[in-house]
């Protein structure tokens, strides 16, 4: 839009009594929306009755502004903060971090034990993921459940929020105790993906409880009993974990539809 409409046309546009064909009105309006210079021409060609109407509105605005609240300038990141940080997760995440801290401490006190951080890493994100999008724990669940964003989008977004806390905590714990970083983080991601993939069928909460129980019984308990790190967490198993993570993530994506449907679980 490089050329401006004829000023006479603009004057006719500004005059409600003047006749102007629709097509011209159309192109004038498109132009005016993007051109401050021509909007000023509209302002310049106002008749008396127009000016009095504008003055009347301005007086009404004065009253309205005096009576109502002033504009609220929002903090820069407030929208992002509200969308990504889920307040009801805070106690659970705090607990997770505290447990990891205890594991690090215990490791320092009793170096003979198998790496507790590695043993706990797969189940560390599960409590957070389980309640991230759950009827029982989210106070606004009923409101949110009927919106188009409910379902997988919501779950993934909140899971990302959980991982944003758990992953750095695990990374820190693994460097502190000298546990392999890959063998801490990969199982963590694999179990998160598994929870979501399985959650598509039975609900995320049940999936998290089930996976956590299986891991505790099959790996943690024997490891503590024998005081030996199980084979799945020894050096060399990380390619296996990476492969598992990718497979499970793919599976979760394939089952995405499950979360968009109505369901009685979650």
């Amino acid at each position, binding site marked *: 839009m490089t050329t401006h409409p004829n000023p006479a046309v603009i004057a006719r546009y500004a005059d409600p009594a003047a006749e102007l064909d629709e097509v011209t009105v159309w192109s004038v309006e*498109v132009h005016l*929306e*993007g051109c401050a210079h021509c909007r000023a021409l509209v302002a310049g060609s106002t008749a008396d009755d127009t000016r009095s109407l504008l003055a009347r509105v301005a007086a009404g605005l004065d009253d309205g502004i005096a009576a*109502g*609240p002033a504009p*609220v300038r929002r903090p820069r990141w*407030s*929208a992002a903060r*509200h*969308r990504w940080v889920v*307040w*009801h997760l805070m106690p659970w995440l705090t607990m997770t971090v505290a447990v990891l801290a205890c594991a690090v401490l215990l490791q320092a006190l009793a170096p003979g034990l198998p790496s507790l951080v590695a043993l706990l890493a797969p189940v560390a994100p599960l409590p957070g993921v389980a309640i991230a999008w759950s009827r029982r724990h*989210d*106070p*606004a*669940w*009923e*409101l*949110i*459940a*009927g*919106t*188009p*964003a*409910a379902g997988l989008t919501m779950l993934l977004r909140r899971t990302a929020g959980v991982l944003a806390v758990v992953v750095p905590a695990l990374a820190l714990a693994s460097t502190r105790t000298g546990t392999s970083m890959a063998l801490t983080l990969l199982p963590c991601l694999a179990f998160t993906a598994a929870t979501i993939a399985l959650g598509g069928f039975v609900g995320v909460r049940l999936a998290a409880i089930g996976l956590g129980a299986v891991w505790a019984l099959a790996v943690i308990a024997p490891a503590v009993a024998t005081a030996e790190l199980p084979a799945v967490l020894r050096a060399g198993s990380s390619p296996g974990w990476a492969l598992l993570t990718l497979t499970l993530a793919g599976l979760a994506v394939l089952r995405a*539809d499950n979360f*968009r*449907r*109505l*369901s*009685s679980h979650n």
Partner: protein
Amino acid sequence: MMRTVSADETAPTTHPWAVHAQELRVRAGRHLAVDGLDLALGTGVHGLLGPNGAGKTTLMRALATVVKPAGGRLTLLGEAVDGRADLRRVRRGLGYLPQQFGFYPRFTVREFVEYMAWLKEMPKSAVPGAVQRAIDRVGLTAKAGARMKTLSGGMLRRAGIAQAIVNDPAVLLLDEPTVGLDPEQRLDFRELLRDLGVDSCVLVSTHLVEDVVVACTDVVLINEGRLVYQGTPDDLMTQGGQGDAGDSPAERGYSALLRRHRAEAGR
């Protein structure tokens, strides 16, 4: 700034009803709270009446796509709502005020409505204007910056209504919206209801027969999960006789209909 109009948007509307339930059954826990309900709703304000435990809230939750029906057919805006459907499209056209709703107490009213507008996947550029308009329409303009936890019951209710209407829903479901409103606010709310009913399908559940008579174009009466009666408020008033319980013609009509339905069911 010209808008692109999609072919989807101008596809002809073929469904005669915004809300259409056939033989609908919905469970509340183990109990079948809605049991074989047939209901067809078009544009207008529909008042949903019924005694406590009639299944009003369960019906609302099923229509809001929050719970899955146990059986029967439910169509919203022409799309089937059951366990197999992708609901995003339908949900964009829905507004829902639950009977009890939790919220994040640290949010201000504006942030709350804005958050809901975002969840309803409204275009980003439309959100600030739509949020302000919804807040203005429910009369919370002066409280827009107040935190949710500081609001009174009536104000919370109105904030809930604001989030329900922020996306200009084609189907609006309000479960007991007048609870906690003072008489003046109730009058304002009736005005709003009438405005909303001009071009959308509004279903309001309430236990106040008078609200329905004044603000609704249509009365829906359910009992024990079934449709008892559907008609105009004027027709409802002609249903009752002098012997029926109630202080107004509408209340007498309401109790007469219920009494007859119970007698039939008891036979």
